[in-house]
């Protein structure tokens, strides 16, 4: 591996790991003011929303493919199916659709 590539791997490792680790070092947990704890409890729900949209509409160059995938996944999850089932059936439905 070239010296430049080694430096890139090292730099990327550092700037990725440090933000992941720092909060565990900075906060002992549960000592933040109630308002901040409330915000942090909200974070997972908000993050999921932002991770799904607009990404799911654009993972494929065809917008309709994304919309179909989103609709399939929402529907299957809504019936109470577990996550792995939701993932596999969504892939299956899109594969079938693209073969039509």
């Amino acid at each position, binding site marked *: 591996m070239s010296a430049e590539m080694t430096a890139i791997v090292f730099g990327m490792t550092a700037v990725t790991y440090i933000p992941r680790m720092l909060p565990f070092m900075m906060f002992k*947990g549960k000592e933040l003011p109630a308002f901040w704890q409330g915000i942090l409890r*909200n974070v997972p*729900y*908000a993050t999921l929303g932002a*991770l799904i949209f607009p990404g799911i509409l654009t993972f494929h160059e065809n917008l309709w493919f994304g919309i179909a995938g989103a609709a399939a996944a929402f529907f299957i999850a809504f019936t109470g199916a577990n996550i792995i089932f939701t993932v596999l059936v969504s892939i299956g439905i899109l594969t079938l659709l693209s073969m039509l």
Partner: protein
Amino acid sequence: MVETAAAERGEFKEGFYAGTGIAIGYFPAALTYGLLAKSAELSFVETMSLSIFVFAGAAQYIAISLIALGTGIFEIVLTTFILNIRHFLMSAALNEKAEDESFWKKAAYSFGVTDETFSVASMRKGSINASYMAGLIIISYSSWVISSGLGYMAGNALPQVVQESMGVALYAMFIGLLVPLLKTSHKAIILAGTAALLNCIFIYSDTLSSGWAIIVSTLLAAVSIEAADQMKRKGQSL
């Protein structure tokens, strides 16, 4: 002692099973990464080093395209930082759910905090600990690293149709995590909907890069809805 060891194994197993969905989702993503890395003329060792040490999908995709363009080290590292700073927020949220354990255990499992492991861990009922996180991360990380190598060596083998459809996997997993919560909590609907809408606005108006867009829309939604919630509660208590 025997009981705690058994409990730890139970936690590990639970994490491991919870990570299966991630492992399936990482397969096509890492396969694509391996393929792209090869086409960008990275060596096998370079391709694997990024997956082994960085373990951050989007950052790795962007890094190889920047490397292919001949971009400098500083810009590549800075772009990675901007893209991955969102994990600070995720780790801070996970920390609130984390059981009291030594910092070193937390420092070890924090390496595996990705969008996906965070989503699964934060939606777990009750608290999280090192055994659970180890199970969750080991299966996800293995899938990521092994599939990167497979992609580099034989990514073209999978039929194109299946490759394209598998792109939906991680989104389907996020939806699978979110929908049960939407059914039971109005606040979850408002939070996820607001952040999704804000993120769409930032991305389509081209005001923020995708890394910042996720942080800003998550924070704006989490803060404003918490503030509204508190005002409502204060109003009721008066």
